């Protein structure tokens, strides 16, 4: 658990982060959203002490982050930034090995770990280990950046606009990959982003920041349904909030009995937004839902979707 207590950051007159307190559960993804200048990156950078706090305390797993040298603290956390910051004079393998080397792991252990990570990120080790960063595509560079951050098996991963430099198609894939990897590793991830859709897609909980203050810290649904501040409403946008709400709901959680008369099947992991889209596209009012094994486990119809997307 990460406990941020009354943390502030001031530069002379200006307050960039103002008395922020929040508790982050281990093993979850939290996104920090806000416009530029909201203090979201500063808040993240105070956790690995790239920026010094002016006031307050941060505790990670019961340990004050100030109780150890900053370099040691950082080696136990992953850090991913926009534009990935890969070392251009080191190969992919050397980049990934950065933190294990700083921690003086054995060479054979490092090599094993590097290959394991390349596999995890769908980069064929033999083909990619000895390439230079500039020989990779943007999406591949981004994956190497994340692999490098995960190399020493940190329990906490800090990401500052990690997908900011990617085009929309690769971006979506990278987001999906991050979710998969978080589920596999069970680590805690903090993502700073200005993209509301990204924040909602990734997050277990979303922290909305504005002018250095934490306006709301809640599950994505809560932020849509019970925004605590006009700014949260503005940030999420009102025109498609029903659709946003539907995109957060999974088909498997809104099942009615199977209707054998219906031909159409959709997967249980689909969001209600996807279901609505598919129904509209085909001009039918109902679909069956199948599980991963292809068995029908229930159905969903339009009235059900309307109910799920309604203001509460």
């Amino acid at each position, binding site marked *: 658990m990460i406990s941020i207590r009354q943390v502030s950051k001031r530069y002379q007159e200006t307050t960039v982060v103002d008395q922020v307190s929040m508790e982050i559960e281990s093993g979850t993804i939290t996104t920090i959203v806000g416009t530029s200048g909201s203090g979201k990156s500063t808040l993240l950078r105070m956790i690995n002490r790239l920026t010094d706090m002016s006031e307050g305390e941060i505790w990670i797993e019961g340990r004050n982050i100030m109780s150890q040298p900053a370099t040691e603290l*950082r080696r136990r956390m992953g850090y991913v*930034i926009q534009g*990935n910051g890969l070392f251009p004079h080191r190969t992919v393998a050397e980049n990934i090995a950065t933190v294990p080397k700083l921690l003086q792991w054995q060479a054979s252990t490092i090599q094993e770990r590097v290959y394991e990570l390349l596999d995890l990120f769908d980069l064929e080790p033999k083909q990619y280990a000895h390439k230079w960063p500039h020989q990779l595509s943007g999406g591949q560079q981004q994956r190497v*950046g994340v692999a490098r951050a995960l190399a020493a098996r940190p329990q906490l991963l800090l990401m500052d606009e990690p997908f900011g430099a990617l085009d929309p198609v690769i971006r979506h894939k990278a987001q999906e990959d991050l979710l998969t990897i978080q589920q596999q590793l069970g680590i805690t991830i903090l993502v700073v982003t200005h993209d509301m859709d990204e924040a909602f897609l990734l997050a277990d909980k979303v922290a909305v920041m504005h002018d250095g203050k934490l306006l709301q810290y809640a599950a994505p649904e809560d932020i849509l349904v019970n925004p605590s501040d006009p700014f949260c409403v503005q940030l999420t946008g009102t025109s498609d909030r029903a659709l946003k709400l539907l995109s957060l709901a999974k088909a498997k959680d809104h099942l009615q009995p199977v209707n054998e008369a219906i031909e159409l099947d959709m997967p249980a992991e689909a969001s209600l937004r996807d279901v609505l889209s598919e129904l509209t596209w085909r001009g039918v009012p109902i679909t069956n839902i199948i599980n991963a094994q292809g068995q029908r486990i229930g159905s969903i119809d339009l009235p059900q979707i309307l109910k799920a997307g309604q203001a509460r």
Partner: protein
Amino acid sequence: MNRIGAYWPWLVRLVVLLLFLALVFKPYWFETLFAPLAPKGAAVIYPQDSLASLTGQHLELVLVSLVVSALLGVSAGIGVTRPSGLEFLPLARAIANIGQTFPPVAVLALAVSAVGFGAYPTLIALALYGLLPIFENTVAGVKQVPYAVLDAADGMGMSASQRLWGVELPLALPLILEGIKVATVINIGTATIGSTVAAKCLGEVIIAGLLVNNMAYVLQGGLIVGLMAVLIYDLLGLMQSFLVQRLGLSAQVA
């Protein structure tokens, strides 16, 4: 580029190198070539000292002074780009600039009064002269390392010295080499004036030629110095482009 085309630069390099070696070690091969330039009855090839040993001493002067200015210039350049040294940047810049703008002859004269005649005053003048390009290029090289790379290095938990040796210097190296390259070429030429204060070098041949009005001496001294500068500049350039290519830095440095 076709296959033959790719070999051209190497062929030129080989010819220049052979010409240089021949001039240095077998100057008598060129006697007939230089003869028209020498006064009647005078020696055509400089007889006082072997050209090979003068060339060696010339190179030694350049090399030693270069090591000094590289050590000083690079460490000063690193120093003023550290957070604690930032305020010294204008001062260090001013000092390096003075070293460059002061005429080397004046530095020589001043140095002679301090350390006497011989190689030392020449070394001082050359070292001062090479300081500026190396210092300025080190500063520029360290400063052009992208912010994201430095932020990543810090975020990974590198200490200040790990970041310097592992990230900043390797990435600044192509530009530092550029500075050393420029300083080398300047100093190969400038070293010739060292012979006015009795330093052994190729300037001796040129100045002797001017004194006795023997253009053959001037030409052979000048040719060797010139070819030496071209060859060393080219060699350093090759090293530099190899580095740049290897690091994939071409976009930043070119």
